[in-house]
Every structure is written in structure tokens, then in C-alpha cells.
């Protein structure tokens, strides 16, 4: 009983941190005390936090290492940006347009997550990681050869080149191959980002504390035992993976509507990004959603705050990353931290 309450409390601490962070930021914004750099970073912070929460569900609760989450982000980003660019003139209310775009982006990511999960979840461990990595790359490469445009005669789709579309003079290119989508409206905002994070946190917390969540965790801990008590392994695996992909997709929507240009480069939607998201998850603590959000924020802020070091910036960033990883996960560091905490407790009790 006590333990359950503690868990509930814990969840509310997470929400409280997000809300307090939001209020602090808004207060700074209103009083004009925030630098342009920080203002520009607010939406990316939300994007990466969301992604990390999504992946943490897959890695921490389903226990499957996915290296393809940047791919789902890519799907969410492109499908929603496609919608927004096409409907830019038809729907002028940016909030309505963004909500529809969000639903489309999330749904597409979920759909692809589901389709990919069917074959992929037959594997596990390293094999699954490799296959998801490959799928992530496929998504990126397919997006890079897509040419879609429309003119008075209708829609044109090609996967070879812009000329192959045969667009009329009045035609508009929507997805222009490697050049991606340009002119996406700026519909993302920090408020929307924070709302999305809270929604995502509520979903994952409720899921993991429900019957479904316990079933998912039982599969993670021992698949054979789970099967023997009658849990439908395939169903729960698919469910968790799809939700995870959907959250990553919503992060992609946020990403796409923050910049006016959207291209699928190895840098933003390739495996580098997938690994970066995994780093957020591992650093924040596998299975710890609050940790994911915090780690994503710190690791996104860090390289920007280190701009003052100019050329040494990325070098220092890498060193800090190693140091943080050691501090969080090295057995000796854990023992040292526990000793330190015990000391604090002692002095606290004495005082």
C-alpha cells in the first residue's frame, strides 16, 4: 500500500517538474529575461524530450532495443509537414491546422510502427536492434527519393526525379526529393510542446501502471513465463512498440513545424539521431521517464551553452557525456553516491 502511494507521488513529482519548468520559462519570457538562443531552444527541448519518453517505453518497459526511432520521427515530421504545407491556405487557424497535422503525423508514425513491428518483433535483442536500425535508414532513404507535387490536373508522384513528375507551369512541389519540404508554417510553440510532453507522460505512466503495462513488463522479464500464464505476447509487444513509435512521431510533428525547411539528412533523422535518443534514455535511466526528459534537456542544452568555447565545444561535449555516463552508471560511482547520500541523511537527522 505504502509503496503504491509512493509510486503515485513519484508520478506527480514528474508532472510538477514539467509544470514548474514551464512556469519558470514563461515568467522569464514575459519579463524579457531570456536570451534569443534559449528561446530558440525551447521547442527542440520538447521535441527531444518527447522522443526520449517514447523510446524509453520501448527500451525500458518492453525491453527491446530500437535503433529506428529517428525513422518514426521522420515519418511523423514529413506526413504532418506535407499536410500543413498543402492546407496552409485552406486552414488559416494555426492551432486547428497544427492539431490536425499532429493527429496525422502521430497516426502515420503509429501505422508504420505497427507495420514494422509485425516482422521485427519476431526477433529480440541485438537482432531486433539491427533490423530497426535498417528500417530507420530505409525510411530516411525512401523519403529522400520522393517527389510529390500538384498542379491543376491533380497530384503527381515520382521516385526518380523532379522532371519525371511532368508538372504544369502552375504546379507546386510539395516534397522535392532530397531537398525535402520547404515553407512549413511555424505552428509549434513551447506551450504546445509542454502540453504534448505532459500528455505523453500521462499516457506512458498510466500504461505502465495498468494491467497492460504489467503484461508488457512480464514479457520483458521472462517471455516464457508470461506465455505460460496466458499472456498474448505478440499483442502486447505490438501495442507497446506502436505507442512508442506514435510518441516519436508526435515529436517529429513538433520538429517539422519549428523550422521552415525539412530534409531527411543522416544528421537529423539518421541512425545518429536514433542513437542520440537512446543516449538520452540510457543516461536518464532505463524505465525512468522523468530521467529521459531531464537527460534530453541537459544534453540538448549542453552543446549550445558551450558555444563560448568555439572550436573545443564538441570535444568538451563528448567528454562531459562520458563523465555523466560514468557518474550515473559506473558501479564505483553508484557506491560513492550512496555513501554520500547516507552521509547527508545522517547530518540531516542530527541537525
Amino acid at each position, binding site marked *: 500500500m505504502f509503496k503504491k502511494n509512493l509510486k503515485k507521488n*513519484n508520478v506527480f*513529482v514528474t508532472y510538477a*517538474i514539467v509544470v*514548474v*519548468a514551464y512556469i*519558470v*520559462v514563461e515568467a*522569464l519570457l514575459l519579463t524579457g*529575461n*531570456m*536570451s*534569443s*538562443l*534559449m*528561446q*530558440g*531552444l525551447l521547442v*527542440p527541448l520538447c521535441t527531444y524530450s518527447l522522443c526520449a519518453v517514447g523510446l524509453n517505453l520501448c527500451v525500458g518497459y518492453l525491453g527491446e532495443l530500437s535503433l529506428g526511432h529517428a525513422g518514426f520521427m521522420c515519418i511523423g515530421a514529413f506526413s504532418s509537414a506535407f499536410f500543413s504545407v498543402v492546407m496552409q491556405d485552406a486552414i488559416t487557424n494555426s492551432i486547428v491546422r497544427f492539431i490536425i497535422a499532429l493527429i496525422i503525423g502521430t497516426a502515420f508514425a503509429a501505422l508504420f510502427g505497427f507495420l514494422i513491428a509485425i516482422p521485427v518483433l519476431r526477433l529480440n535483442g541485438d537482432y531486433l536492434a539491427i533490423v530497426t536500425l535498417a528500417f530507420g*535508414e530505409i525510411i530516411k*532513404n525512401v523519403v*529522400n*527519393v520522393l517527389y510529390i507535387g500538384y498542379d491543376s490536373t491533380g497530384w503527381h508522384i515520382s521516385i526518380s*526525379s*523532379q*522532371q519525371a513528375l511532368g508538372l504544369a507551369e502552375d504546379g507546386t512541389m510539395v516534397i522535392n*526529393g*532530397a*531537398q*525535402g519540404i*520547404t515553407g512549413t508554417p*511555424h505552428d509549434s510553440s513551447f506551450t504546445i510542446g509542454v502540453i504534448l510532453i505532459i500528455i505523453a507522460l500521462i499516457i506512458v505512466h498510466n500504461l505502465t501502471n495498468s494491467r497492460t503495462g504489467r503484461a508488457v513488463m512480464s514479457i520483458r522479464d521472462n517471455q516464457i513465463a508470461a506465455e505460460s500464464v496466458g499472456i498474448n505476447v505478440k499483442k502486447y509487444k505490438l501495442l507497446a512498440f506502436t505507442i512508442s513509435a506514435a510518441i516519436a512521431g508526435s515529436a517529429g510533428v513538433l*520538429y517539422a513545424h*519549428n*523550422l*521552415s*525547411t525539412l*530534409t531527411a*539528412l*543522416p*544528421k*537529423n533523422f539518421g541512425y545518429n539521431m536514433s542513437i542520440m535518443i537512446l543516449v538520452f534514455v540510457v543516461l536518464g535511466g532505463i524505465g525512468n521517464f*522523468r530521467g529521459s526528459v*531531464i537527460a534530453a*534537456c*541537459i544534453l540538448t*542544452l549542453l552543446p*549550445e*551553452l558551450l*558555444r*563560448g*568555447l*568555439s*572550436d573545443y*565545444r*564538441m570535444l568538451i561535449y563528448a567528454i562531459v557525456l562520458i563523465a555523466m555516463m560514468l557518474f550515473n552508471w559506473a558501479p564505483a560511482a553508484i557506491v560513492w553516491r550512496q555513501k554520500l*547520500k547516507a552521509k*547527508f*541523511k545522517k547530518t540531516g537527522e542530527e541537525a
Partner: protein
Amino acid sequence: MKKKVLSLMLIASMTAGLLAGCASSSSDSSSSDSASSDSAEAVDGEVFKIGGIGPVTGAAAIYGTAVRNAEQIAVDEINENGGINGYQVALQFEDDEHDAEKSVNAYNSLKDWGMQILAGTVTTTPCIAVADKTAEDGIFQITPSASSTDVIKNDNVFQVCFTDPNQGTASAQYIAEKGLGTKIAVIYDSSDVYSSGIYAKFKTEAEAQGLEIVSETAFTADSNTDFSVQLQSAKDAGADLLFLPFYYQQAAIVLKQANDMGYEPTFFGVDGMDGILTLENFDTSLAEGVMLLTPFAADATDDLTTAFVSKYTELYGETPNQFAADAYDAIYIIKAAAEAAGIDPTMSAADIGTALKEAMVSVTYDGLTGTGMKWEATGEVNKDPKGVVIQDGVYVSID
């Protein structure tokens, strides 16, 4: 309890992070370690603050570094000679890792520094994202090398380099006019905006000029180390001219592999090919007879080029490429426009932006990358591409 302590610590660190972010903005630029020696004494209203953005880390770092170095040379020269309208110039260059999101961060960081004019960004995709932000803030932007037409769709952005379509069209016309080849093969980088942009226009114009394209093969950034398949396809199709609209690092591999398989068509490149002669470990004899259209040749003999090249070589130990030349020109173009507009640093960035924007169309500039350069209100530059051919390891003009 354990988690509470932990979370408190993390909240503290996050807040500290946020505050640190604010601190660096509210304090003067003197606290930040800038790329410029002048910005240490930069005080608002007494110097022009020019910002630069480009990749100085990551895969595209050579372009950003070249631009940063050349901009620094130009700014130092201007300051030695009395500055712009009598005011000194401060330059700060920020890294964007060739990523749109990072580029916007770099732009915001420059805005915190107090940037009034932006000489960037270097690469196209980040430039589109930044161009949107400069349009919002009304800041004047001139890009040395971002060549897509999407870059200049806002009226506050101007280009020093040719637009991609322009280069594609010019190349096709050049080949047709000089009768360099009839059966043409193209290899291009489908994952690169620059390369696919040039290729798209080249194809259209080549058809209009009656040139026959017999082979079109693509590669991507993930597969740019082996071109034997593409070369075989071109050879099998009997192409006598191979058009290579991409950067020199890949071009060097293409030339090497073509030589290995004994395939000897005429090679024709674009301005990205410039730099191939100074590439490390590249046998320049392979580049014999390669033709390219470039606005800049490092071994030209005019005074301006020789002075720039010798200064760049002396300071940075390498021959400047076309990016460096474009960037050097960009700073001087800003100077020319600023003098035409009669602006001073006490004006707001937006006012300077408006004044420069209006002055740009009346400016005529002779620089490293062309003489009599003029700008349309759209931001596109008018200059003639120069055709050069590599003979005995140096560029020789074809015309």
C-alpha cells in the same frame, strides 16, 4: 527520499543551466570567446557587428572553416583601412554543424551578441531555415555559398554565388556551344540539394540544346566512396562527356576510378569541383583535361586574387577554395552596400536591414569571384561563369 534528493539535485542543475543561458546573454559579448579579435572591445553603437554561420565541425567543416577564415581576413583588412563609413567592424562566427536546427540556434546566439548584419549561412539547407528568421527580424543577410533558389525567396537575402539552376543551365549551354560532347552521362548526389538542383536544370537545358543524355546515375551521402557502378553505366552507354555536378572530394574518387578502368571521357564539373588540385593525396595528373565552370581560380594573376591567396596561405597554410573567395567578397559587398546606404552602427538591425536591402540593387562590385557583379531585388547575382580547363596542374581559361 532517495529519489526526492536526486530530483531536487536535477532541478537545481536544470535551473542552473537555464540561468547560465540567460547570464551569457545579458552580459556583454566581451565575456564570450569569439572568433574575432575585435569583438572583445565591441560596444553597441560603435562598431558594425557582422555575424557568420557555417559548419566548422562535422562532415562539411571544410566549407565553414574556409568561409570563417576568409571573412576574418576581409574584416581585418577593412578595419586596417578605416572600417565601414568610419566605423570598425566586429565579426563573430558560429558553428551550425550543417544542420538546420543548429543553424537557427547559432543565429539566435548571434542575435544575443547584437549582430546587425549576417554574412551566412554557408550551406543551403540551414540557410533556408535561417533566412526565414532573418526575414522575421528584418536583418540583412548575404550568403556566400548557399546556392538554392529557396534561399533567396525572402527579399532580405542576397547571394554571392550562382544559383543552382543558373549553373545547370550555364553548364549545358557551355557544353553545347563549344561542342564538348554529344553523348552525355551524369552522376549526381541525390541526397544533396546543391547537386540535384544543378542536375535538374542541366537536364532541362541539355534537352533544349539538343544534347543527348545517355546515362543518369545517382549516389547519396551514404554511398559516396565507390563509383564503379555509375562509371560502368556511363561507359556502357558510350558517353563521351561526363558531367559531375558535385564536390571535389567525390570527384577525385570518380577520376581515380575512371582512370583505373581505362575510361577517358571529357570530365566537366561545376564550382564545387574547385579545390580538387589542392586535395591531399590526390594525383593531380588524373585531373588533366578536366573542365569546370567556376567563378574563382586560386592561380589567377590579377592583383586582388594574388593578394588574397598569398594572405590566406600565409595565415592558414592552405590555398583558399571558392567558398573562401565567395565569403571574402560577401564582406566587401556588405561594405559597398553599407557605404551606398550611408548607415551607421547606432541604427537598429532592422533599419540597417531595410537600408542595405534598398542599396543592394544599385551596387556594382568587382571582386574575386567576378567583375561587375550586380544584384536583382530578388537577391540573385548577375555574373558570368568562367570556363577553365586543368592543364599541367593549373587552371587555364578556355575562352
